[in-house]
């Protein structure tokens, strides 16, 4: 494996897969950062296992995208520069306190669960198969994050304050999930992808239900942060990739 950066020829299907794979990899990596310092042992295992599910989903998507581009899953993960990453800005946001981690997971899962359920009808058989696996796993991730959000929001004065702060801070990153560029529109027309707008009612309903249980207030819809899908990231992704890619960049082709 070379150590220099690769630039992928992104036909719409490849770009679509890389976006979803990068979401899963970056969020899975963020969760792995809790290893050794989660609040309790049970939660340590839960976060690590949710991270594993996500990295597993990323691998399946990279393998599929790799088959279309001639790159291996490892090359796609380790040799693309920050500007080549297509993940949502939401998932690269730092772990913060436990409330930030849980709210980030809740927002992502409340979107990804209905997203993958709808993708099970994709005309691309491999994507439909990946969607069927991801949907089962993320329905559990959503339940896990929802239960924690209710505990935190409806907990002590401090946990409520921290949970509401996290909701307010991360909410402006959620609009990007519903974006659909011209390339994706062509995939939607071909029955390969879905337009995320169709799952907005499910997302709204999930937020309404869980935030009400948690005694938290949904911020008003307003200006939203975007850029991740186009490779324009917050300052945090570069640091994350430096850690994620270090080994393969320094020791090209290193194997366990």
């Amino acid at each position, binding site marked *: 494996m070379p150590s220099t950066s690769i630039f992928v020829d992104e036909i719409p299907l490849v770009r679509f897969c890389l976006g979803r794979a990068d979401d899963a990899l970056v969020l*899975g990596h963020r969760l792995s950062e809790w290893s050794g310092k989660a609040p309790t042992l*049970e*939660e340590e*295992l*839960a976060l690590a*296992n949710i*991270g*594993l*599910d*996500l*990295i*597993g*989903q990323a*691998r*399946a998507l990279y393998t599929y995208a790799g088959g279309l581009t001639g790159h291996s899953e490892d090359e796609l993960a380790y040799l693309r520069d920050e500007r080549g990453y297509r993940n949502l800005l939401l998932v690269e946001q730092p772990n913060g306190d436990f409330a930030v981690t849980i709210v980030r997971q809740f927002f992502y899962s409340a979107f990804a669960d209905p997203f993958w359920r709808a993708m099970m009808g994709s005309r691309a*058989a*491999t994507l*439909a*198969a*990946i969607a*069927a*696996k*991801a949907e*089962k*796993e993320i*329905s*559990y991730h959503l*339940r*896990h994050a*929802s*239960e924690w959000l*209710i505990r935190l929001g409806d907990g002590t004065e401090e946990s409520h304050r921290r949970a509401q702060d996290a909701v307010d801070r991360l909410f402006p990153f959620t609009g990007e999930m519903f974006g659909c560029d011209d390339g994706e529109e062509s995939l939607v027309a071909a029955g390969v992808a879905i337009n995320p707008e169709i799952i907005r009612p499910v997302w709204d309903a999930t937020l309404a239900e869980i935030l009400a*249980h948690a005694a938290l207030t949904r911020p008003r819809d307003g200006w939203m942060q975007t850029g991740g899908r186009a490779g324009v990231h917050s300052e945090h992704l570069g640091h994350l990739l430096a850690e994620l890619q270090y080994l393969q960049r320094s020791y090209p082709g290193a194997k366990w």
Partner: protein
Amino acid sequence: MVTAKNILARALEAAATVTDPEIPALTVADLGVLRGAELVDGTVEILITPTYSGCPAMHVIALDIETALAAAGIAKVRVREVLSPAWTTDWLTDAGREKLAATGIAPPPRAASRRALFGAADIACPRCGSVATEMLAEVVSTACKSLHRCRTCREPFDAFKCHR
């Protein structure tokens, strides 16, 4: 005479003896992970379905299958993952469910609602059969199990989580 058909039958028989490294009471056949065998250009391909996307046991299982087939005299082997249809705990065989219970792990409930918050379905104690049980921890030694306590016999036990 060695025919393709009986090579595949032997291969499947050998693969079916491989156990899950995290739950050694169960074989890959009990789990429903073993999906079939095909002969492709003289190589035996064993088809398996991953349980969870990131389950670390899958690599070990693939390696163990290759080893088991080598021991059965089949050298050219490849293990291939088949994603669709996606595995669910409903694929555990009845024999597998009995083996789980015999080792003290409650088998996964067949009809639990996966969206119920804070809710665990009634899980019967694998020791005394009582359904007066409570969950102590949702994530324990492996992601696919949870920890419970029986309020009747007072014993703690693991339960295999419902995944569907």
